[in-house]
């Protein structure tokens, strides 16, 4: 604990993140009449607006992953150059909730090579809202928090065409980026389309060391179209089609031949006039993902295998916002139905032998029905209390007989069906007076085990070098959480220190079972998912922004995490002291920035989870941009060098210590016609 306090003290600096209050008014005519605005604690990362990427960002065409990891709450587990897995408050996918405009989507890869964030593009999105802990429970159950990726929200208006071209090049991995966006708007109708293509070769780590199998290709197309039914009613349909091919995962024994997603939705939005209900939004959605792992390009594998996975989700939510006296209410009724199936086919060396086939996800249905209610009550003009609660029913069923039979080898008594009841509750107090902001809160939340944790069958984890088998009768993981923040927001200075503590009971981890023999050739053993009594995770972050003048800004961000189980054994992927500081100078159309980013030595590593000591590192990045106005068109240019000193390094969250990218020159161009 002493160490924790010490590190708290050590944190004396702020952020690259442009955090700002969310304001979700969609239809321009409906200007908000609120005098008291609810104080929001979430972090919002601005990506861009209306398919036109924000010129405030230093590298407009970077990946979503790169945008997200700027948040003090978010870090990324990296298995390659592509499709990083976001961790929120040091917690990975199973304990978090990532949604796209409130839509639940589940990756189809048993090895987490396709987090939801890999199926969208920066040009699809306007911002990412990051909520810590139970504040993120609006669209389902979570422990660590949530990320809602918000799509561009167009407005009706005067008839207007808008055309953008985005293009970029990076020297390190010869990444070529080309994208277009075409938008049309009038009083009754709008349509936004955007298209982006990325093609990258292997990247080179520091000292020009090529990282084999780090290439990728990705194509993303998106269209959103809205129609105004009446003055206060809107209907909107949207589609995202994303296809990544030939994606290398240098840290894993397998690559991906194809990852393809179709994400569709139909939204109806109603803004009642003169009613306590201020907004009522209902969305129906469907998404389908195909993901195929492939090892045919690897030079030597003990046995070739195909591991395809499929995930389909149908869902809806209906969200009502209401304002009654000093109450700001939010009610969200939501439901999804997901089907996940993953197979493994192994090819014996003797071609006359039958193929070896098994189901690694046994065609599992997850059907969730939940209700979330939140009340943000304004105590007075500078303080408020936010209370939220949710209940949900989480139902699983194994559809495949083969899959059920397979699991019954280990669990003879298990049944195909399982139903769980999940609840959450949170309360926060926030105050903001004369620039001094502070808040604190407590929460309780639960989550059901993930498909891998409950029903996974001999899934190899190359980090721990164990095969993992699910456990269908795991208890719900429950979390007690406390959070506190304090900040100062003045004209020239913004400071914020935020901390959260989670005590997670029935903490689900894989535990070696020596009676079992691994399936994967070369694996150390087999782990079965079990519940630890409890584990605790502590996170603290400090961010500051100091404006020396209108042009010159200094940002600092410091993050530290600590995670232990009830036996004082370290948990994996918990951040050591991580820092970044940047000085930005911008004047009129010119912008420039220099960034130093690094981690202290990772000494509290989780050895039993395959982690080892990671040395400290620091890298320097620099960029500059200029905005040209040519007639009515605009050309936004960004140039930069990342890892200027060509440092060879790896971070605590790099899978199997594989090295990060070395020196890289990039250029991003956006033409707005």
């Amino acid at each position, binding site marked *: 604990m002493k160490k924790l306090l010490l590190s708290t003290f050590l944190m004396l600096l702020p952020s690259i993140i442009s955090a700002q209050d969310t304001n979700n008014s969609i239809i321009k005519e409906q200007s908000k009449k609120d005098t008291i605005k609810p104080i929001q604690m979430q972090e919002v990362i601005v990506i861009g607006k209306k398919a036109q990427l924000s010129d405030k960002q230093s590298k407009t065409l970077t990946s979503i992953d790169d945008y997200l990891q700027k948040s003090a709450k978010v870090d990324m587990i990296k298995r390659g150059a592509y499709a990083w897995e976001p961790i929120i408050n040091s917690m990975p996918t199973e304990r978090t909730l990532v949604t796209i405009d409130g839509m639940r989507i589940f990756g189809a890869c048993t090895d987490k090579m396709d987090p939801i964030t890999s199926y969208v593009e920066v040009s699809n999105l306007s911002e990412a809202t990051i909520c810590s802990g139970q504040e993120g429970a609006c669209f389902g159950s979570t422990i660590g928090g949530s990320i809602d990726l918000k799509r561009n929200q167009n407005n009706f208006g005067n008839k207007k065409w808008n055309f953008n071209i985005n293009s970029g090049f990076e020297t390190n991995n010869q990444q070529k980026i080309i994208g277009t966006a075409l938008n049309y708007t009038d009083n009754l109708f709008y349509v936004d389309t955007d298209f982006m293509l990325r093609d990258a070769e292997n990247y080179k780590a520091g000292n020009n060391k090529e990282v084999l199998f780090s290439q990728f290709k990705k194509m993303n197309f998106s269209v959103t179209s809205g129609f105004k039914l009446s003055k206060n009613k809107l209907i909107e349909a949207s589609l995202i089609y994303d296809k990544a091919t030939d994606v290398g995962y240098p840290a894993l024994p397998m690559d991906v031949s194809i990852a393809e997603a179709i994400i569709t939705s139909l939204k109806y939005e109603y803004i009642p006039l003169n009613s306590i209900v201020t907004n009522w939004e209902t969305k129906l959605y469907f998404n389908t993902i195909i993901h195929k792992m492939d090892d045919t390009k690897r030079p030597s594998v*003990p*046995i070739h295998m195909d591991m395809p996975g499929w995930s389909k989700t149908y869902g809806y939510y209906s969200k009502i916002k209401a304002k009654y006296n000093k109450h700001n209410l939010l009610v969200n009724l939501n439901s999804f139905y997901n089907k996940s199936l993953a197979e*493994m086919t*192994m090819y*014996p*060396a*003797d071609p006359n*032998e*039958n*193929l*070896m*086939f*098994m*189901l690694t996800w046994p065609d599992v249905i997850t059907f969730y029905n939940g209700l979330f209610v939140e009340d943000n009550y304004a105590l007075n003009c500078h303080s408020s209390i936010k209370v939220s609660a949710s209940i949900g029913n989480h139902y699983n069923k194994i559809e495949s007989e*083969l899959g059920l*039979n*397979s699991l*019954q*080898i*280990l669990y*003879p008594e298990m049944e195909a069906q399982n139903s769980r009841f999940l609840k959450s509750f949170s309360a926060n107090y926030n105050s903001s007076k004369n620039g001094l902001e502070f808040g604190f809160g407590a929460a309780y939340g639960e989550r059901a085990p993930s498909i891998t944790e409950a029903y996974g*069958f*001999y899934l190899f984890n190359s980090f721990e070098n164990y095969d993992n088998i699910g456990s269908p009768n795991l208890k719900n993981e429950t979390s007690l959480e406390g959070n506190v923040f304090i900040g100062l927001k003045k004209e020239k200075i913004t400071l914020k220190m935020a901390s959260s503590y989670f005590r997670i009971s029935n903490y689900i981890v894989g535990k070696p079972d020596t*009676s*079992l*023999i*691994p*399936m*994967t*050739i*070369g694996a150390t053993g087999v782990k079965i998912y079990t519940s630890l009594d409890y584990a605790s995770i502590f996170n603290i972050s400090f961010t500051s922004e100091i404006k020396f003048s209108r042009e010159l800004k200094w940002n600092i961000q410091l993050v530290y995490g600590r995670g232990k189980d009830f036996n004082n054994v370290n948990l994996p992927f918990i951040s050591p002291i991580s820092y970044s500081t940047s000085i930005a100078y911008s004047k009129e159309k010119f912008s420039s920035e220099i960034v130093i980013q690094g981690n202290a030595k990772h000494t509290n590593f989780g050895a039993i989870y395959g982690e080892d000591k990671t040395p400290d590192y620091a890298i320097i990045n620099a960029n500059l941009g200029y905005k040209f106005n040519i007639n009515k068109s605009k050309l936004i240019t960004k140039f930069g060098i990342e890892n200027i000193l060509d440092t060879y390094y790896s971070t605590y969250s790099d899978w199997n210590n594989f090295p990060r990218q070395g020196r890289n020159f990039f250029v991003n161009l956006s033409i707005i016609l």
Partner: protein
Amino acid sequence: MKTLLKKILAIFVMALAITSCSNDDETTSPVVNELEGLTKFKEITNTTHTIELYSHTGSTVQGYNEIKLRIKNNANNQYVKNAEITWMPIMHMAMMNHSCPNSEVEKITTDGTLYEGYIMFQMAQNETEYWDLKIDYTIDDVEYTMTSVIDVPASAKRTVNTFTGSDGVKYLVAYVDPHHPKVAVNDLVVGVWKMQDMMTFPVVDGYTVKIDPRMPSMGNHSSPNNVNATQTTAGNLYNGKLSLTMTGYWKINLQLAKPDGTIVKGEEITEAVTSSSIYFEIEF
């Protein structure tokens, strides 16, 4: 509505009755088809009777064979229901003859016509050596006999182990079931016999057949929660549980243990010992 339902039900029952009858002509009760899932592989005839031999696969093969038979009276084409039957399979080798483990022949149901038993051919025929089956039967105190050559090709996978145990006894261990293995916990049936003399192969009682299924193509991966095969009653086959975690080629390594635990044959699988000297093979 009710009458409609009744009509549908009636039609359904009738349809069922008709289809069940169509397969066998004269003998069985109208609803049960004795020959369901069986295929005739042999017909042997003498002057008075014809014996029809059936199995699930429509053939016989090296290893354990479940065989069903019925006797037709050539005079009236009626199947005999009151015969007493014994059989004796004989291998004709160049230098000698010998038999193999086989069971009594018993009637399956009192009203039916089918008789059943098993024969475990421990070796396959070849160009010069062959199996024949002598069937002796008694009907109304009159004795009859028939003998015919039986086709016993080698099995594609190893299903029989014949060996001399550390106790000097010659044992025979054969794979019986599952015929159609699944990715699941399968009910395993194994037979254990010993050679008393060239013509007598009694069931060995009270032993344990230890099993360790492995996939040699997959790093000799094993499966969890297998149950060694043991007998429930003396004289019977041995029952165990066989877990198969995926499709493909599996080698079921065996150890034969005496009631006191002594291993008479077979080795435990370790890093160094990847296969036992006695084993079965399955592929699906």
